[in-house]
């Protein structure tokens, strides 16, 4: 079993929090993990990505080869499309529908959605609104993680435990909000799929 996941977004949008949940859950499940991330100048409002690889066998490369990603989870619709060459045939796409516009030539939103919808296995989710309605707009990333959860090689329990572990420091309320965000993401994905 080997699962390759690309996390995409803009510097500061919290993709490393998604990565940390995946890492923690994988490690607790006695699986091997490699997770690359971007530090330095690109973090300042630029396109960033993280490659997460989870396996019960030894993982060699820190980077996912082209055409081998099982899924791309993006907190921004255009950033999702940037990494399509990495997606395997019929791989899963999960993205927030809300754009992060900090460039003057940002494409037409409808064109982006249409492009995403041409992929058979895509989940377009208004994660930001969901997170806001739960009273924690910062949990957008966790909503998206929840939406992808059913297709991850990690048990629901291990993911919930990882969320508890990671947010523990910030207090019980933040833990609860993030668990709600995760579960809401799961629900929405189920609704879309069925």
């Amino acid at each position, binding site marked *: 079993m080997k699962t390759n996941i690309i996390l995409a977004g803009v510097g500061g949008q919290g993709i490393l929090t998604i990565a940390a949940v995946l890492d923690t859950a994988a490690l607790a499940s006695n699986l091997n993990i490699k997770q690359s991330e971007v530090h330095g100048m690109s973090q300042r409002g630029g396109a960033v990505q993280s490659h997460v690889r989870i396996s019960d066998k030894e993982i*060699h490369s820190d980077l996912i*080869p082209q055409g081998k990603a099982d899924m791309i989870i993006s907190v921004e619709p255009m950033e999702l499309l*940037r990494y399509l060459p990495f997606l395997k045939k019929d791989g899963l796409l999960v993205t927030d529908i809300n754009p992060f516009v900090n460039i003057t030539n*940002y494409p037409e939103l409808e064109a982006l959605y249409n492009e995403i919808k041409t992929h058979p296995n895509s989940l377009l989710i208004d994660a930001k609104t969901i997170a806001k309605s739960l009273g924690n707009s910062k949990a957008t990333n966790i909503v998206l993680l929840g939406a992808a959860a059913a297709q991850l090689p990690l048990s629901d329990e291990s993911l919930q435990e990882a969320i508890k572990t990671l947010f523990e420091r910030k207090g019980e309320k933040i833990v609860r909000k993030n668990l709600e965000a995760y579960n809401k993401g799961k629900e929405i994905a189920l609704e879309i799929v069925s």
Partner: protein
Amino acid sequence: MKKLLLGNEALAQAAIDAGISGVYAYPGTPSTEITEYIQKSKTAKTLNIHSQWSVNEKTAMEAALGMSYAGKRVLTVMKHVGLNVAADVFMNMAVSGINGGLVVVVADDPSMHSSQNEQDSRNYGRFAMIPILEPSNQQETYNITRYAFHLSEQMGLPVMVRMVTRLSHSRAGIETSKGELQNNIHLPKNPHQFQLIPMHARNRYQHLVDIQSDTRESSENSYFNTFIDGPNTSMGIIASGIAYNYLMENFDDGDCPFPILKISQYPLPKKQVKKLFDTCKKILVLEDGSPFIEELVADYFSENKKVIGRLTGHLNRVGELNPDNISEALGFEVKHFTEMPKIVTGRPPELCVGCAHRDLFEAVNQLSKENSNQQVFGDIGCYALGVLPPYESINTLIDMGASITMAKGASDAGIHPSVAIIGDSTFTHSGMTGLLEAVIENSPITVIISDNSAIAMTGAQDSSASGRLIDICKGLGVDENHLKLINPLHKNLDKNIDLIRNEINHKGVSVVIAQRPCVQLPKEKKDKLKNLKKVSLN
């Protein structure tokens, strides 16, 4: 349970476990997290391990050598271009040798994710004639760093650990092992070892040359250099450092049919290279960075077509390696199923919303508009983004400190206005000496120190300049009438433009300190800055 660590963090944990008494470093991507990990480590605090940032890489490495002189183990850390700054002590401490184990970590940045060049530090290691270690993954980074301190003390030499961005910034589960105690203070046995006057230096240099056979033998027998047999001898593969991982990624369960020589310790183990040459028809060299091994093992005129790699076009000559370009070098087809749609546009990094550099660039651009002769010499930091739209304020960007000295040289050539923009930490790193030079000749340049009181680009670490800039400038002899402080806020724009214009018109050195803390600074740090010594200007 295993610890989930970045390659950089695994290295830092290994250094703590190896019994270092200090780490000396200046921040620089991709090396920064090594020192930060030690700064945050409770164990390191309990053990009283020195971890405060140095002013630059040269001071860092010299302090490390001082700690080694005292008999203690020590780590010094920098990015590849930082080693240029420390090159003087680096080359000479190979001649003097060390006392307590001294490990130099250099994090290279192939593909220049956050750098001006992709120089390969292995060339420096070979230049200095010291052992180089190049881990291939995070666990090996831990193990090899532990080993590095023993090797350093065994050889009496500094040892280089060469990291690359992808290893530095990727996490994996790490198993650590039992820690060692710190060394007690013990001075060098030979009182002349560190006295590099010519008569002693000649002896030391001869010694360095003489022990090259020892460093080579250590490589030949190293646990980290492995010859892996394979049935298909139509090709043999030399894979160094992280390239080994990308290679193995191309074979299910790591089942590669070709013989492989995995290199993680230098000098190159000649016997093993010879064995590969003798048994294989062709040799593919895989290495991240420059064709360092390839140049050593290929013949000068490339008439022997046996060696292939970056020099022969089988791999990209520049840019980092990845599983895909190695796959192509192996003759496999790289398949992808979907192209990136054309509507996707680039998203380069940008200055933060509310960043003080933005307001400074607005002022500078207005002055460039007023006088098209104006040239603006930039420096290394977030403000390097002033090269890009929307500001496009900066004409040059070369190395730490070059803004002031290039502005001076251009001014000597007759360019006016000649303006330097330099950050506070870059100024204390390498700008002060240049400013002194300009003061001595009273060169008509305007130096703007964009003081955000942080080493912002690498994560807002403490700046050596905080609270000291005015005193430093006065001390260097800057005329107090032309040493000005401004607050770069939009509401002050017109006032700031007027002030800078006046200083540009002054026929001598002016320094304008544009002071407003980095927006990325946490509140505690901003509060701390407020309590720093306030120095008033006349």
